[in-house]
């Protein structure tokens, strides 16, 4: 794998049942490329949590994934309400998700902490009323 591969996905904000389709597609691509299993799992989980966040908090958005020989970078951008208190949002167990979201199995306050844990570098840009962009990198070497 010498070339850089770029993937783009629209993440619909109104259909919870489809959340995770992009992550699933990325996982398949990485498997085809022969990326080691543990790396694939980290990318898949980090991106899946991000996708879920985009759907339950951000009203959907776009996901751009770049696969280079050195690293896999995921950029997840929404134009949702933004995160009011990022420090709190990064804390395990803290969540602003609704009871409805909780009844679907999410909103445990583990999304952002899991994303940080499974990526090598994570950067969050958020502005209230403008949106949130999360960039995560998982190193290949």
């Amino acid at each position, binding site marked *: 794998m010498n070339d850089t591969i770029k993937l783009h996905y629209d993440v619909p904000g109104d259909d919870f*049942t489809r959340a*995770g389709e992009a992550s*699933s597609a990325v996982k398949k691509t990485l498997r085809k490329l022969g990326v080691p299993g543990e790396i694939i799992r980290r990318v*898949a*989980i980090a991106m*899946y*949590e991000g996708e879920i966040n985009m759907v339950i908090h951000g009203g959907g958005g776009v996901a751009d994934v770049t696969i280079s020989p050195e690293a896999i970078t995921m950029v997840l951008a929404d134009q949702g309400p933004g995160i009011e208190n990022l420090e709190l949002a990064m804390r395990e167990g803290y969540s602003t998700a609704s009871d409805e979201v909780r009844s679907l*199995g999410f909103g*445990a306050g583990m999304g952002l902490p899991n994303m940080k844990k*499974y990526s090598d570098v994570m950067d969050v840009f958020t502005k209230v009323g403008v949106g949130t962009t999360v960039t995560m990198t998982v190193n290949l070497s």
Partner: protein
Amino acid sequence: MKIRQIAEILDATVLAGEADLDHDAKTACGSDMMSDVLAFVKDQSVLLTGLINPQVMRTADMMDIVCIVFVRGKQPDPAVIEMAEERGIVVLATKLPLFTACGKLYAAGLSGGGIRIRE
């Protein structure tokens, strides 16, 4: 432990993956919160849950989970079963509640064994 044994211990019906019942499961976890499941990386794991929406299957897919056990007699939609078949995940259904189902498997020697990577 073979998945077939898990099905026997839990008196479970097989909803998907009949051909893979002789695959091995090394660890298990029980939860209705998918984000908690995603916080722990395990190998060849079984997920016991009372949640029956498609996100259970996606979570299992991301985690490389080999078998899902739906507890408390819950029956997922055919679309959810289809997702499991596409992904090669065995699906079992038991009438037992989550705590009892986990207890029986633990007593039979299946461990929790979750390791948390990257503290």
